[in-house]
């Protein structure tokens, strides 16, 4: 039985492999960009994440973009980082989102502001991602704010979190941390971009061994390489990203103008392999500024058409 009206929850519950993708809002107030990106992916995904000032760069706010998507008839996933808002602002935004029928959230701590366009900003970090999960669960299941106030109406959120199997200290700790997020109330997980499949499988096996796969739905995160340059950047510059040399070498082996095509091919092959991994309940496609390729990936991985629930 679904706990919420979330379409994403229903699709997972019906036993389908779920597909989510994301829309990164513009660095301006041009809402048409959101319409445009949404139109590119809407028929190929079950729900659409809206990033929250990703990499600490100021963008049109996730909540406004989610409302826009909802009004366009899409199923938004409100991403929320604890970097920029305290528990007062976050709970307020959760209530605001719920009032528009937004039923999915992804709880994140967020990249440090030193990465972004306002490195001199103060950060908040009143809560961390795990505590944000606890907060939403309390609001939904107990009908209470963190401060104890009992609400007349509860926000019906399908609660999501991220996990990075490739970050430190090791795979076992990353599995333990997932267990912690599940204990806090996480119901679906969108993972960091997967490139190192053996390591992902190792992590996934630990999740299955702990019986966590029956408590939380894991959507495997994938991002296609647009070029060799991007692959190298992801490998060398993005903390917690694990790109094996074999993937770099494969892109190196094709002429520059064919690298994008090869990147898509690699991503589809990976999705096909990940589909068979026990515990994987779907995919989260992060086609960064390459939304027009989502359809190709979904079709290529045999995940089209999307189920109706």
């Amino acid at each position: 039985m679904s706990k919420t009206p979330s379409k994403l929850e229903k699709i997972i519950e019906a036993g389908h492999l779920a597909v989510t993708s994301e829309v990164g809002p513009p660095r301006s107030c041009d809402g048409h960009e959101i319409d445009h990106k949404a139109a590119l992916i809407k028929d190929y995904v079950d729900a659409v994440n809206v990033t929250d000032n990703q990499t600490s760069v100021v963008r049109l706010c996730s909540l406004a973009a989610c409302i826009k998507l909802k009004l366009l008839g899409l199923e938004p996933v409100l991403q929320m980082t604890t970097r920029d808002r305290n528990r007062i602002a976050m709970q307020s935004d959760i209530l605001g989102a719920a009032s528009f029928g937004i039923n999915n959230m992804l709880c994140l701590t967020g990249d440090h502001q030193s990465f972004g366009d306002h490195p001199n900003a103060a950060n908040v970090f009143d809560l961390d991602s795990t505590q944000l999960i606890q907060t939403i669960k309390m609001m939904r299941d107990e009908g209470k704010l963190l401060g104890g106030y009992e609400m007349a109406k509860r926000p019906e959120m399908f609660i999501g979190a991220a996990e990075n199997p490739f970050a430190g200290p090791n795979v076992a700790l990353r599995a333990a941390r997932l267990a912690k997020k599940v204990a806090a109330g996480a119901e679906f997980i969108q993972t960091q971009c997967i490139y190192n499949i053996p390591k992902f499988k190792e992590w996934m096996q630990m999740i299955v061994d702990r019986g966590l796969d029956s408590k939380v739905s894991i959507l495997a995160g994938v991002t296609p390489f647009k070029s060799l340059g991007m692959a190298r950047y992801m490998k060398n510059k993005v903390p917690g990203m694990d790109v094996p040399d074999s993937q770099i070498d494969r892109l190196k082996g094709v002429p520059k103008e064919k690298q994008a095509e090869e990147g898509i091919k690699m991503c589809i092959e990976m999705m096909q392999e990940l589909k068979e991994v026990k515990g994987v309940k779907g995919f989260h496609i992060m086609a960064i500024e390459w939304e027009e390729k989502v359809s190709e990936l979904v079709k290529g991985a045999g995940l089209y058409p999307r189920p109706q629930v």
Partner: protein
Amino acid sequence: MIKATPKPLDEVISYIKDYNKILVAGCDGCVTVCEAGGMKEAKVLAASLRLYFQAQGKEAEIKETTVTRQCDKEYLDELKDLMESADAVISIACGVGIQYLTENYSKKIVFPGVDTHFMGANIDRGIFEERCAGCGQCVLASTGGICPIARCSKRMLNGPCGGSDNGKCEISKEVPCGWQLIYDRLEALGQLDRFETPVDPKNWATSRDGGPRRIVREDLRKAEPAHGGAH
């Protein structure tokens, strides 16, 4: 202890260039240890200021001194004569000392000669690192003696985040991941089970978020002064 660093000389000069009688007031406490505001640094700053005024062809009288602690009234009282003879004061104590000196000599203009940074340890000669964020509610008992608030860039209580990379923090390869340190310590102590249970939201009211803080220790107020000071 409190860690500070000397302000750039140009900035200090910009504060006092229009005064003639200047007192450089150091402190024998924390800032002496971190070599930012002790007698040695007071002498160096005073000498630099004399050179500046000399080069400008301006007459100026510059004195230097230190007191045991600028954060104690009884020691600030010792500065009475020197303060009276100065028309501007540069305190090279920490931010606490600078303010307390100002509070106790309200008619004098006091300028800061250091930047005060954090509570930290002396890692090596000239290397100081933050260890305590003064949150007012110590969590070290559950984190293997390593503070996630001071040592995690995101002060997470349920770390490490996904940016922890080969033991380093996502903000810099020079910064160790605080949660990696906690993990290593708890592993050595056989307490990794602490990573399994969520830690609830912290009460930040005991931290700076609760407003300016004050401690009233009734037990101490009733007791005899330990060092015969002016209480």
